[in-house]
């Protein structure tokens, strides 16, 4: 392959690659330079995910959600002892017929709970909790123990274990993230490279010039240069982006939701997720973030707003899926890096805490309360003890929902919960 050959030395586009590989050009000869989508899809050679496979939507409540004021133990005098000003009055709580009720801003989630499509797991956390946002988020995203550091995320390892591309076809993203603060979440990072896509409210160029621009960029981006980790990473991301971009734009434009999504970015992201699911995109995991839960001061109005956004967004999403007949295919799970301190602070807020309840939503979810509520018989400024390890939830999602043995994804063995029907 001399440099002065009429063709570029390396296939510049996916189309050209498949054309050329059909004419028996060895793939491994240039695998070092080829974009990820070319290499690992060919090596893996596994069938494409089927369209009706199950989908997991992970909703991150970033900042540390105050679980005690989300699912309120309104019959527990210790709750009001620890929360003299922030406690939600019993007559405001949306009761569920037991000892716990929902924050008044969660009307829609309350309704879904009453209908049996929402499960809440009490006291989810892990031993030796870390109170740093970043470290604790890392622990949740990588499913590590408190004292361990893993380079990959739990969803990424799931993708490593179960996913492969579909050579011969445009390779769609196996994981999609939306509304995240720092780009691709660590959760989605695997040991292998997987095509992922970040949804942006922005829609790019249109028309003929756009197509020409994409083609030219594909041809020069695919060209070999000095190999290097950063350069290769950029090339891969750009090549995957260019291909997915035009496709996703067409899908979002054509989608007609059967429900009216609120205008906030979180709900709009869920709207886009619904559109991609409805399009039959083989994406297995969606990751959507709702930010702002770090309520150290004057928490009541802020937290109520956040819960309203969460509740309205999730309920609209669920309704939309149901009216499209997609609801039995989708399960939504929330998480937050920690709950907040049981006792309120002196700034009408709450500081970093430990365990908190976690939501599961969907038509295949076994609704109701699960696990054991943490005891509030604790002195001021002490944290509640977790009752369910978050890796039990992951194990359940992997095995009972995504039908993937958890052994290769989660280190250690954690009992499952009966959450999926």
């Amino acid at each position, binding site marked *: 392959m001399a440099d002065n050959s009429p063709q570029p030395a390396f296939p510049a586009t996916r189309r050209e690659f498949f054309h050329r590989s059909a004419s028996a050009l060895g793939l491994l000869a240039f695998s070092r330079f080829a974009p990820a989508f070319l290499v690992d899809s060919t090596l893996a050679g596994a069938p494409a995910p089927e369209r009706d496979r199950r989908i997991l939507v992970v909703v991150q409540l970033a900042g540390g959600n105050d679980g005690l004021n989300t699912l309120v133990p309104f019959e527990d005098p210790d709750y009001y002892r620890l929360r003299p000003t922030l406690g939600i009055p019993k007559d405001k709580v949306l009761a569920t017929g037991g000892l716990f009720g929902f924050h008044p801003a969660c009307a829609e989630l309350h309704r879904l709970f009453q209908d049996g499509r929402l499960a809440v797991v009490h006291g989810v956390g892990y031993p030796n909790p870390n109170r740093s946002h970043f470290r604790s988020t890392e622990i949740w995203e990588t499913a590590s123990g408190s004292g361990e550091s893993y380079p990959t995320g739990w969803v990424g390892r799931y993708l490593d274990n179960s996913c492969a591309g579909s050579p011969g076809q445009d390779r769609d993203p196996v994981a999609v993230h939306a509304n995240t603060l*720092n780009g691709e979440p660590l959760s989605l990072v695997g040991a292998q490279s997987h095509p992922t896509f970040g949804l942006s409210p922005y829609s790019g160029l249109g028309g003929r010039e756009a197509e020409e621009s994409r083609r030219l960029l594909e*041809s020069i981006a*695919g*060209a*070999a240069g000095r190999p290097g980790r950063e350069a290769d990473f950029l090339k891969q991301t*750009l090549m995957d982006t260019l291909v997915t*971009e035009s496709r996703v734009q067409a899908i979002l434009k054509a989608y007609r939701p059967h429900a009216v999504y609120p205008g906030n970015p979180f709900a709009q992201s869920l709207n886009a997720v619904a559109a991609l699911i409805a399009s039959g995109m083989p994406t297995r995991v969606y990751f959507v973030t709702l930010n702002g839960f770090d309520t150290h001061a004057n928490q009541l109005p802020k937290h109520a707003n956040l819960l309203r956004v969460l509740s309205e967004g999730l309920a609209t999403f669920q309704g939309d899926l149901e009216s499209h007949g997609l609801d039995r295919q989708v399960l939504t799970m929330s998480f937050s890096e920690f709950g907040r301190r049981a006792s309120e*602070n002196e700034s009408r807020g709450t*500081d970093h805490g430990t365990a908190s309840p976690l939501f599961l939503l969907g038509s295949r979810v076994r609704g109701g309360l699960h696990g054991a509520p943490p005891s509030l018989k604790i002195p001021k400024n002490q944290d509640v003890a977790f009752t369910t390890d978050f890796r039990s939830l992951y194990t359940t999602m992997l095995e009972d929902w995504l039908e993937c043995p958890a052994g290769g994804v989660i280190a250690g063995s954690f009992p499952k919960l009966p959450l999926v029907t």
Partner: protein
Amino acid sequence: MPDAYDTLPQPSIPPESAWDPLPAAGWDRGAAAHLLRRAGWSAEPESVERAVREGMELTVERLFAAGGAVFPMPGPVADLERDLPDIQRAARQAATPDVRRQIEQEARERSRSALLDMTIRWLEFAAGPEESARAKWVLFLSDVYVVAFEKVPRPFLLYRHFDLIARRGLGPAPELTKAVSRSPAMIHYLDLDQSRREAPNENFARELFELFLLGEGNYTEEDVKQAARAFTGYRADPSGEFRLARAQHDDGVKTVLGTTGRLDGDQVIDVAYGLDAAGSFLPGEWARFYLCDGGIPGPWREALGRRWRAREYDLGWLVRTLFSSRLFYAPEFRGQFIKSPVQFYLGLVQDLGLRVMPVPRLIASPLRRMGQALFDPPNVRGWVGGRQWINSASLQARRALVEMLFSRLNEDALDADERMDLGIARSGGAADFCVPDSLLSPLLGLKPEAAVDRLVRRFLPEDPGPAFREALLAYLAPAPANPAERRRRTKRAAASVIESPHYQLC
């Protein structure tokens, strides 16, 4: 906990000699361009020539010279500061809740628009070649000592925070840290204003140790609790001045990081600077901001940390040492670092000889989509940087910005305020906010091979290789006979070079 740095690749120069100055023989065009791109935003051919001529030491001195221009407080920010007490009074005295809400809504709008104005002014300031390196250094330090508009919607407090960093950013680090602990923006951002003798709020003390000074693993939960007591009573007056509320301050005995006494906030900071971890922490942050994804391993940080401590944490010494070091110029760090969105845009402005477009909607919003809203980092850790900048959404946003700069500005689509801003910016003389035809004209006279060569050499930090050139050539050659089509294709080729993966590196 295992240190995430432990898995980093080892630099090619051993820790003992990594921080020695680059030998004169290593100072060439490549090294000079590397310094200019990394310390500032771009490597203009003339600046590279000058740096080569003057030598490394003089160039580093010049880039970070003390006593340069300071970023002045933008008018709308000052106006808001002046008017805010009246606005708040009017809101309190409003006749009905609806009127009050309306007043508050207007105040929020004014804050947001003042922030956007400050974003544009800062970009204009930082785009000045003489200010670039110092402005970037301030951006770096503000990415350590983070405050954010989201929590502190007072642009004048954010301005003061940046200003104090700019004024102390090349002096002794402990003085900077102490000044930051008194910064009204910080006092509000990390809830010091809620922290009382009876009820210390841990937020500031925790981040002081974890994210400003020492790094995780170098302090205990108890240190955080005790240190929080020392910072009780830190307040900001409505006028924005620091004051210590004695009645709220806990002046009792505390034990922090092994030192016991009636420690106040400044003394806690001094105690922390007594730890080795304080010496190696900032060099680690520097490496992640300026050098390479993920930073450098412990032994390299520690080697510099020891020397820096011996210099009593002089930031001026640190900056000169960092940017003169053999490590900084090591081959593995050349052209292999992903540009931040601000570097991407300001580099583009300098590379293309443009002025910062004074329209927030067209500049500040793209920066946010690319992941870097100035004065509003996502959380107290600041921007992680490196690969974190890049995902499909942020790449789309980078491309969209390039396309905007390469198209003719449609002024009819601007609102009246925006047209006025453009007019004011132009009144100082002819100014290009978008790529002018004159920039492309020299390329049009060239043969396609030569045009490709010019584009590649001018914009990319490393040669992208023959396949890249051939792909570009296949698009440009044979040159279309129609001049308009020829111009269009040349423009498209230039835009594509800038949208290519290679241009995202520096």
